[in-house]
């Protein structure tokens, strides 16, 4: 058998094995076409079928038991032996052992009573090797002295260190509470609790480092939780004492501890910055439930540990504010100089995050991460008919790059917006806050394709890379892959394994189907009554040619979702269509971030299934962290949950990656206003108006911000201005009705209410907004009838009825009927 023959055998084997049993024999006969030898070869392979599954799946030697957890890891039997007590039942003449608190690598810990001082203590026994060697004993006492000098609310106090009956022991304050390890064993912690515990540990470390004491073994098992959130670090100095008696050569293969810094793992010199690393790992685990360098089998990936970077926490918990994610990231820098230099710096940043301010780490990240804007390619075709294709190339490259965590990519809207402004590369870099720009051109002539691309550094205009591709139309994916690979390579982006795999995930597709798809996208991005029909038509044609092309189903789903969300189609019809298309897309490609995002949006705006909304949106963000619109929509979900801080962080992060997007500016105004950050909302409003004065949505939300600040005249003024600039009448009516009623101009308010009710049918005026105007006029009965109707008709604003009613008519929210409504909507958990 030669290689060629084998390839033939393999091909047939794969073909046949993919079929159901009854069809196999017939298929085999057919494809072998009388070649008996070939048939026999394939049959003997097929005969192995029942054994293939389990063969070679176990390790070459017996399986390893789960690492660690074994009592007394160092195998020192004496540590486990019960402590020697005198006739009175006391150890060392004063401690009555009450119960075992725990056993770990260091030995056994007991709760004991100090009969002399009448207090509970924790009594810990260490390896017998310490008592045996004079050097180890001297070192033990020296370290214990240093640890005993620490007096800080976040450090567990060391009372005494001694030897008794050949056994070294420590006496510490007894903390009546679980370890952090126990606390995180069952669930990921809320962001607030994580911050509080992290601040305590950082504060304890800062105090210890100030006295020259380094812990070297910060891990959840060494953090005790006294009271609800008060965290205390225990076992200071022990790592060094124990380390001296333990062979470090065995540490690695015994299961490298998950919290060890790279310098520790490599046996290099360590200083206080090793504790900062370990604390970063602990925060990471509180947030995500996993160690930053865990592999799928639960081991620690040493390669990732020493080379970095750790995948960002957002990959496992997208709702973590970007500010906090940046702080964790900065703790986990392989390069010591890039890490926080002191625990106090880290503490200061944690406090900034808690207060909703920007930590220093965010600025550091912005400066350090390579960044790029991909401009739309220029259409160089003879008739200039390929603009859709030129844009599509850039969009696909943006989409591929946005999945990479180690690269900051400006989103489509903003990248494309600068093109029309005629800016030079340096100005583009400044406007979009990026270091590099990719630009190029496309020329299509018949089936031939010519694409050029240049990667340019904005600071000096230097061409890092440029290439010209003369290929067949069918090679378009290969060209996109080559361009993304060149960018990743030239910008020296660090890639995770899964990102590497994702970059290569391209299925072959008919170039014509792809061209139709790009045309559809082109019109989808310019959504209006005129373009919708064309976008639908091209999606339809693409799917008629290839019904299995998942991106077209996902695009269709997204378009139905946009139509529903912007009231361009009746939501009751559009959302179910969006769901149908999204489910089709997911059946073909379970990793379609666009389809997951649409499913999340449907659940939030239409189905009011908050759990499904969170699942869809976080999955979409995990698959594509750079998707600014998805992050903005996630902000609306967070508003529904009243997670105001996270909501603000989400929309700020979305704006950072898409700084010129009118929609996201509209979102920012709306979300900040609803969260009570009126000033920030109005600042974003001014930018939104500069950017796209004809876009109506921000005016509506700015009026809300003015209303909640009690500035009714300004609110009315903004609405009037908005009406001249494309703000839809019924949105204007909603806010103006409320404002007029509050100003005491009841007749005007009543007229507005009448108009809204009259137009409700034909132009889908929001039922909830009618209710708010009626309630401001004092008519709660009418208000509740419209809220009921909003529930029945699945009015899109109802998802935030609890938040907006608090702003527009607080007394309405105190009516028992309101509580009943919230129960129906499963919103009582987030009601005030």
């Amino acid at each position: 058998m030669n290689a060629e023959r084998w390839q033939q055998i393999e091909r047939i084997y794969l073909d046949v094995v993919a079929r159901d049993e009854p069809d196999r024999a017939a298929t085999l006969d057919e494809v072998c076409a009388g070649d008996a030898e070939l048939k026999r070869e394939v049959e003997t392979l097929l005969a192995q079928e029942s054994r293939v599954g389990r063969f070679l799946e176990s390790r070459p030697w017996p399986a390893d038991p789960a690492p660690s957890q074994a009592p007394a890891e160092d195998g020192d039997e004496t540590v486990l032996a019960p402590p020697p007590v005198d006739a009175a039942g006391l150890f060392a003449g004063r401690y009555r052992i009450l119960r075992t608190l725990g056993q770990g690598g260091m030995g056994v810990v007991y709760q004991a009573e100090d009969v002399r001082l009448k207090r509970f203590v924790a009594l810990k026994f260490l390896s017998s090797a310490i008592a045996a060697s004079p050097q180890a004993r001297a070192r033990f006492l020296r370290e214990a002295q240093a640890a005993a000098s620490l007096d800080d609310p976040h450090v567990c106090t060391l009372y005494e260190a001694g030897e008794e009956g050949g056994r070294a022991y420590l006496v510490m304050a007894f903390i009546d509470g679980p370890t952090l390890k126990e606390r995180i064993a069952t669930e990921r912690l809320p962001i607030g609790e994580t911050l509080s515990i992290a601040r305590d540990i950082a504060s304890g470390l800062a105090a210890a480092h100030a006295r020259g004491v380094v812990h070297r073994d910060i891990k959840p098992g060494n953090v005790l939780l006294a009271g609800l959130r008060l965290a205390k670090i225990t076992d200071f100095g022990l790592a060094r004492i124990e380390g001296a008696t333990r062979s470090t050569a065995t540490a690695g293969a015994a299961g490298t501890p998950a919290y060890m810094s790279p310098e520790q793992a490599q046996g290099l010199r360590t200083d206080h910055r090793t504790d900062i690393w370990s604390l970063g790992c602990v925060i990471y685990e509180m947030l995500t439930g996993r160690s930053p360098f865990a592999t799928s089998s639960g081991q620690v990936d040493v390669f990732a540990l020493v080379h970095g970077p750790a995948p960002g926490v957002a990959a496992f918990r997208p709702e973590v504010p970007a500010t906090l994610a940046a702080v964790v990231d900065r703790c986990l820098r392989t390069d010591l100089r890039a890490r926080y230099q002191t625990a106090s710096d880290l503490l200061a940043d944690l406090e900034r995050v808690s207060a909703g301010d920007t930590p220093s780490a965010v600025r550091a990240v912005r400066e350090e991460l390579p960044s790029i804007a991909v401009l739309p390619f220029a259409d160089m075709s003879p008739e200039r008919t390929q603009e859709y294709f030129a844009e599509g190339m850039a969009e696909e490259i943006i989409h591929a790059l946005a999945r990479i965590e180690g690269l900051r990519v400006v989103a489509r809207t903003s990248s494309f917006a600068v093109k029309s402004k005629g800016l030079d590369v340096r100005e583009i870099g400044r406007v979009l806050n990026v270091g590099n720009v990719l630009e190029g051109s496309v020329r299509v002539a018949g089936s031939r394709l010519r694409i050029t691309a240049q990667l340019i550094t904005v600071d000096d205009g230097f061409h890092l890379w440029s290439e010209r591709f003369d290929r067949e139309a069918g090679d378009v994916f290969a060209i996109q892959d080559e361009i993304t690979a060149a960018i990743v390579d030239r910008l020296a982006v660090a890639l995770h394994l899964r990102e590497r795999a994702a970059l290569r995930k391209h299925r072959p597709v008919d170039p014509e189907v792809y061209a139709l798809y790009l045309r559809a996208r082109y019109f989808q991005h310019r959504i209006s009554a005129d373009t919708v029909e064309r976008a639908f038509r091209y999606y339809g044609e693409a799917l008629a040619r290839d019904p299995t092309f998942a991106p077209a189903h996902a695009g269709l789903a997204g378009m139905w979702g946009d139509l529903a969300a912007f009231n361009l189609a009746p939501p009751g019809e559009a959302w179910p269509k969006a769901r149908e298309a999204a489910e089709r897309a997911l059946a073909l490609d379970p990793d379609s971030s666009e389809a997951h995002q649409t499913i999340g949006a449907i659940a939030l705006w239409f189905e009011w299934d908050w759990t499904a909304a969170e699942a869809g949106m976080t999955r979409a963000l995990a698959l594509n962290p750079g998707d600014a619109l998805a992050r903005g929509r996630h902000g609306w979900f967070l508003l529904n949950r009243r997670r105001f801080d996270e909501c603000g962080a989400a929309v700020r992060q979305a704006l950072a990656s898409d700084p010129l997007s009118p929609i996201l500016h509209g979102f920012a105004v709306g979300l900040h206003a609803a969260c009570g950050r009126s000033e920030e909302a109005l600042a974003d409003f001014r930018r939104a108006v500069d950017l796209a004065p004809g876009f109506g949505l921000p005016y509506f939300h700015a009026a809300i911000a003015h209303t909640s600040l009690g500035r009714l005249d300004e609110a009315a003024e903004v609405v009037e201005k908005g009406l001249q600039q494309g703000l839809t009448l019924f949105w204007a009516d909603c806010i103006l009705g409320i404002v007029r009623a509050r100003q005491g101009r009841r007749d005007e308010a009543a007229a507005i209410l009448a108009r809204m009710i009259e137009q409700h049918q034909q132009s889908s005026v929001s039922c909830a907004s009618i209710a708010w105007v009626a309630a401001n006029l004092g008519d709660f009965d009418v208000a509740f009838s419209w809220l009921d109707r909003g529930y029945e008709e699945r009015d899109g604003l109802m998802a935030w009825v609890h938040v907006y009613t608090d702003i527009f008519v607080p007394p309405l929210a105190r009516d028992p009927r309101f509580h009943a409504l919230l129960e129906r909507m499963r919103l009582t958990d987030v009601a005030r």
Partner: protein
Amino acid sequence: MPLPASADVTSLLVAWSEGDDSALAQLVPRVYDELRRIAHHHVRAERPGRTLQTTALVHEAYLRLVDTRRVRWESRAHFLSVAAQAMRRILVDAARARGARKRGGDALSVPLDEVALLAPQREASVVALDDALNALAEVDPRKSRVVELRYFGGLSVEETAAVLHVSPETVHRDWRVAKAFLLRELSGKDTAP
């Protein structure tokens, strides 16, 4: 015996990553020695009842042999590839030695404790698997490497894909077909491991 200084392995690894194939020939024996040394150390020093894990051994060897400040992340793939080859040879040698010792010979000087630790229960099957892999490499070298990396190197599908510069789907497919091939080779000769 070449110097075991970590700088040497690092330089070789860099050279090999940059296309110097002769470096590979020197790398494998050093990684082989180091893996055996670590395994040997564990046999003596470790707790009873605990067995070794391929991944942990390979990781430890990496930390001990390679100066991580001098290599790029990409060296991971190259090192894993070398380590998988070395692991395969260690296991096959151990199995042969055990077999030889049973028959009264001692042709290979592999220490007894190490053999006891490393050799699988049915040593003949590892030797047969090694032969079958060689046969597979004749017609389809990539599939043979997939098995080497996955089985002997302990690599996951994603890691294997990264080392070989193919997609994870290809690894899945290769793995399945390779196993059918190997099972067929082994059937009639010896029972599978």
